[in-house]
């Protein structure tokens, strides 16, 4: 797999590590135990286009949000993940 890092350009898979589904957002402080449980444990486990967190740890150390198809491994977009992982209070 090759990932086009928005900062570094196209790079080899080995420079990246995978975290998982980028859809669940970290509940804001004060969330119920159920909400946090859902965030930590339950997954859509999508067969098809999925949004994911990857870390360019072997490069510029940016966390990325990548749209990738889990059936074909085709990547349709890569963007910085800055700020997309958590719900803010009141949001």
């Amino acid at each position, binding site marked *: 797999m090759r990932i086009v890092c928005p*900062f*570094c*350009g196209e790079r*080899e898979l080995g420079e990246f590590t995978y975290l998982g589904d980028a859809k669940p957002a970290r509940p804001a402080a004060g969330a119920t135990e159920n909400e946090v449980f859902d965030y930590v444990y339950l997954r859509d486990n999508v067969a098809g286009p999925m949004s994911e967190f990857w870390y360019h740890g072997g490069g510029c150390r*940016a966390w990325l949000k990548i749209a990738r198809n889990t059936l074909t491994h085709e990547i349709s977009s890569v963007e910085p993940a800055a700020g997309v992982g958590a719900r803010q209070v009141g949001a």
Partner: protein
Amino acid sequence: MAEFSWIARSPLEHALVVGACGARGTAAGVSLTEIRNFDLIQVMARRGKAAELAKAAETRFGVAAPGTPKAVRVADATLIWSGPDQFLVLCNGGKHAIEPLSQAFAQSGSLSDQSDARALISVSGEKARAILAKLSSLDLHPAAFPAGTAAATSVDHTSVNLWRGNDRPDGQAVFNLLVFATFAESLWHTMLDAAAEYGVDIRHSEELG
């Protein structure tokens, strides 16, 4: 009370043996030069202050800090892109060491001294690309990686900063590798193994290319 000497040692001091190594008979295909005793400062923009940082860099160095994977050479330093809104300042002689730079970027940047955290190895010679092809997954074709290109990448599963400096007087490309100090000896041996078939000329220097 004892008198202490504070002898600085480079991470490659033990492993590096000046001279020829590997295949003999023809001119060495690869030159490996360790550059010692440099200052290296990581400069990162504070949140929302990338533009301000760039301005401060321009004030300090007379050129814009690289905003894309480039290495910019000025009279007394090289600015090497190392990630979004961050760059490395490489120099020697202390002019741009951590303290003077901290003042220059006090409002806009966070700085970390990396002068001791890395070893700097310069790779050149006719087979420079051939040996780097064994170490790096990057495309170093002159069209894809012209002089002045920089990359934050990995060699042997270890993070490195790689940039292409000015060509040698004989026209050969020069690739510079900043590797983590504690990995340096191990990587050095890997590099020698990769280069052995081409013949290697090994030296060290305090001159920044």
